[in-house]
């Protein structure tokens, strides 16, 4: 094919590259610096509020990959109680359907994202592991009360704003 010019287009491209070479970097030096993650972040752990739970197993049934194992029984007052609630986070695909299915709104996605462990067995969390404590970080996914309490997400479009 015939070209109108030779080298002009390449020079133009170089100019753009030069301009970009002298601007500030947009990447973050993780883990020294961290951005605020989304308020609705779906991390790979669940947070469970035991006191509100009615042991209805809706969450286990909603899960598309069957990673919640639940065993319930009735106590002497005929009240349902949770004997076992295992969440295999190695299988969990963080879809959030269990959280949406919970009628008591007592199950939350977690905002934790550093969840590497040394053995596969440790990926299986028991009900003690997912119990809501002061240190657990429930996310605002499907939970507007949590959402408003959390810090705003850092957006690349707003430029750099490190939280620490």
């Amino acid at each position: 094919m015939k070209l109108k010019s030779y080298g002009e287009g390449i020079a133009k491209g170089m100019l753009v590259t030069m301009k970009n070479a002298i601007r500030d970097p947009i990447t973050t030096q993780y883990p020294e610096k961290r951005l605020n993650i989304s308020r609705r972040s779906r991390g790979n752990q669940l947070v469970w509020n035991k006191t509100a739970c009615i042991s209805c197993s809706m969450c286990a049934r909603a899960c598309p990959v069957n990673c919640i194992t639940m065993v319930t029984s009735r106590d002497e007052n005929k009240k349902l109680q949770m004997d076992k609630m295992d969440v295999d986070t190695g299988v969990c695909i963080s879809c959030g359907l269990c959280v949406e299915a919970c009628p008591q709104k007592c199950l939350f996605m977690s905002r934790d994202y550093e969840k590497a462990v040394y053995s596969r067995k440790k990926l299986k969390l028991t009900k003690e592991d997912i119990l809501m404590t002061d240190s657990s970080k429930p996310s605002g996914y499907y939970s507007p009360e949590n959402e408003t309490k959390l810090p705003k997400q850092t957006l690349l479009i707003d430029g750099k704003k490190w939280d620490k």
Partner: protein
Amino acid sequence: MALKTETFILNAGPQHPSTHGVFRMRLTLDGEVIQDVEPVFGYLHRGIEKLAEGLTYPQDIVFTDRLDYLASMTNNQAYVVAVEKLAGIQAPERAEYLRVIMAELMRISSHLMAVGFLLNDLGAFLTPLLYMYREREKILDLFDMVCGQRLTYNYMRIGGVSQDIPEEFIPALKKYIDSLPGFINEYEQLLATNEIVLIRTKNVGILTKESAINYSAAGPVLRGSGVKWDIRKADPYSVYERFKFEVPVGSVGDIYDRYRVRIEEMHQSIAIIRQAMEQLPQGEIQAKIPKVLRPPKGEAYGHIEGPKGELGFYLVSDGSTNPYRLHVRPPSLINLTALKELLVGVKIADAMAIFGSIDICVGEVDR
């Protein structure tokens, strides 16, 4: 003395920097000229269609995320459109508008990747691609804000969307949409007049109008060949009739035209998002649907214009909670059928560029 020659078989892929995932092309070469091509795929087969039969309708949305992983939102949309057709559900207006905004953002993001990877395949290794990644990151930020994940959104629901947008979404979207044309221009300046790019893309990999139709190609591949066909105009779904936008087409059907169509479509998507933001009504985001959805016996085919072409879901219901059969019409796979015609007779150096210009996603080809 007569020289003895023979053809040479070259495996391009499944681990190759330009195969866009695990896809293998078995090329039969005569010197540098391709004589035959045999695509080998299935490395990423997860049996999603079969899996879907064992799960309920709402649970299947999760697996549509994993088809075309560069355009999960539109996969969600295509699936819910099909289920809504099957069950006779109408989503509320606000939900439809939100779906349109998300789908168009997804289209921009997918096209950014497509043109970025195309230049990667042309030999501009990674540099232009990283410009694209930068812009795509801003879209992923927005999706992350809305649904909490960057890739597997699982955002749309049968009869609506999962959650309403947070209040900081619209200002951030406005800011992004205003900045995007500037970026596209910068990118055009970077490469569109580059002589090497022009020589390598113009009049290379020509797919004629007739063959494009015969292969039932769709999306930018079809429109690049000059056929004005876009499901958003031809069979409007959601609220697309309310927006003014053009359907850009190419003239020759070469790599360059497909590239141009994608760039123009990004501008059109920006226009659609602007209008959708203006018209966005208040109100419900989820229609009333039964807790356990049992669509009536029958079948339905719902299709939308995905970033890569017509994305359709065919559903058969036997009246139970699970689909009896789910079939996907993946645009990537069907566009790929034109590959043989495009590749036979060209030099090996152009093969990857042509392949890149089709823009496939292996997650969708293999399913």
